[in-house]
């Protein structure tokens, strides 16, 4: 299609005589007008992302009624602080496990050369699973590991009662397992190209210089993979930290995660005069995400520089 379109250009254009005007100049603007074409983009982002985000901060630092400390301060005290610690712990744990298990999965899949379709199949599946989240994922795990779940029942058959052991699909351990369902595939997708970037010649060179396999990994492989591992960790952390739908559906809205807590304030079913707290919690979430994503961009810039 592209070929046909382009090869017909020369013959069939009725006003083919634009040789007098130099076409290249017609397309170029003076330097100071260059950003003009970006106005719609910046306008759109400003209106629907930046403005709401900034208003959030403005509303969060407004003085609260019936309280002498600002909402921003109150959002990191007491129960709210506990919520943040809980959410950060969960995000750190699922990110760490995701990095470890996802990288191992990528290494394992790359080791298997036949059948040929297997690698593609795993990549496609990881693409689906990494984007899976929200309501269907929560449903699947409630059916598997909920109190009446199929897997719960199978484990019970072997004599281990999950709920007696304190396991609930909506508590810390439960949410961790569910989040791994999208964290592991995401890390897999990050690590496959990273592993492929390691050339066979490098391990051969190390071996011919007398390095043991562990020495190759310790001094060559791992340092080369560090940006991908670190960037992946930060991405997985932010992925878990901002997730809402899955945790909400798993716990029927009762989870202690910050995103689920924010919902109460937006619906307004709390003590009056504390509306600002919802804004403050959201503002703190943005601050934490800002730190994480800045770290991610920094790691990626470093990695790109190294590749060139």
């Amino acid at each position, binding site marked *: 299609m592209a070929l046909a379109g*382009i090869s017909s250009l020369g013959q069939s254009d009725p006003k083919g005589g634009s040789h007098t005007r130099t076409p290249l100049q017609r397309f170029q603007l003076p330097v100071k007008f*260059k950003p003009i074409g970006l106005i719609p983009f910046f306008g759109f982002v400003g209106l629907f992302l930046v403005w709401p985000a900034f208003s959030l901060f403005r509303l969060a630092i407004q003085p609260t009624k019936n309280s002498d400390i600002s909402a921003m301060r109150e959002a990191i005290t007491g129960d709210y602080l506990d919520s943040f610690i809980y959410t950060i712990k969960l995000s750190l744990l699922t990110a760490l496990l995701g990095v470890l298990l996802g990288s191992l*999965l990528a290494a394992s899949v790359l080791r298997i050369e036949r059948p040929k379709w297997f690698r593609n199949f795993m*990549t496609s599946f990881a*693409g689906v699973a990494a984007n899976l989240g929200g309501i269907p994922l929560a449903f699947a795990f409630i059916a598997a590991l909920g109190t009446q779940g*199929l897997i719960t029942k199978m484990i019970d058959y072997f004599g281990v009662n999950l709920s007696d052991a304190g396991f609930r699909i909506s508590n810390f351990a439960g949410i961790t397992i569910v989040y791994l369902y999208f964290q592991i595939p995401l890390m897999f997708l990050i690590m496959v190209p990273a592993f492929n970037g390691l050339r066979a010649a490098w391990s051969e060179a190390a071996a011919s210089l007398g390095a043991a396999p562990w020495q190759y990994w310790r001094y060559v492989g791992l340092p080369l993979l560090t940006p991908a591992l670190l960037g992946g960790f930060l991405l997985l952390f932010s992925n878990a930290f901002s997730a809402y739908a899955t945790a909400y559906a798993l716990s029927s809205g009762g989870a202690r995660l910050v995103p689920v807590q924010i919902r109460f304030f937006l619906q307004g079913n709390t003590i009056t005069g504390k509306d600002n707290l919802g804004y403050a919690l959201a503002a703190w979430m943005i601050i934490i995400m800002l730190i994480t994503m800045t770290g991610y961009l920094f790691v990626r810039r470093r990695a790109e520089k190294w590749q060139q």
Partner: protein
Amino acid sequence: MAAMKFIGKIWPRLYIAIAIVFFVAPLLSMARFAFQRIPMISLGKDNLFKRWTIDGLLTTLRDPEFSHSLSVSLKVAFFTVLVLLFLMVPTTLWVHLSAPRWRGVVETVTILPYVVPPIALVVGVSGTYRSIAPWFLASNYSLVPFYAILAMPFTFRSLDVGIKALDLRTLVDAAKSLGASSSRVMWNVLLPNLRTSLINAAFLTFTVVLGEFTIASLLLKRTLPMYMAEAQGSEPQGALGLGLLILVLTTILFTLVSIIRKKDSTSINVKNINVGMVP
């Protein structure tokens, strides 16, 4: 030593097998719950293959509330793709053609949606638009711009990668020197060459919008995920069946996209076009 080698050969397979069980077991459990009319308590070896039915799913699919939520979701998804492409295609092309120095800025801005989690975005949105433009939030289509924001990071990346693979300057100059107008360059030269990126971004956006729950639920819009979450209480079998159906459809969509991507990967470069133009 031989044992070491054996372990080295066997552990990747073992690990992959465990991983596959982890990823498939929840889906199978979901299928059993959705399609078998036996409560968990009385399920045993003897009735494992009895009373399988898709009635629950059919009841849900016949529910008028379902078709309403599906049509809301499809309309919102369609307009999101439209808005996003109309915004991002010219922007990305402009960055590459006229303002390459702004590429870094634009790229950073397209990552901003990751910095503002959907839950924070929707709190900010209701804090601003609710008082200034309540009519806007009342409409189902108020979801469109925010979903476009959510899809912006991967849309920009997809287009950026597609454009980098082209020799954009040469293509535009060649078409222009043959007398093509700017719109003709866009429609007959650039868009056909970017079709893989466009299809990629469009499909991904579509699936993201169909699955999005956070913003829709807090703005009280009756989209498909909202319907599923509510149906879980009234018609749980149907809700889970629907969830599974959506998963299967999404997987098919993803596979199609990756097939298109593979088929196309050879045709996107200037060399082919030059060869085509020699005679």
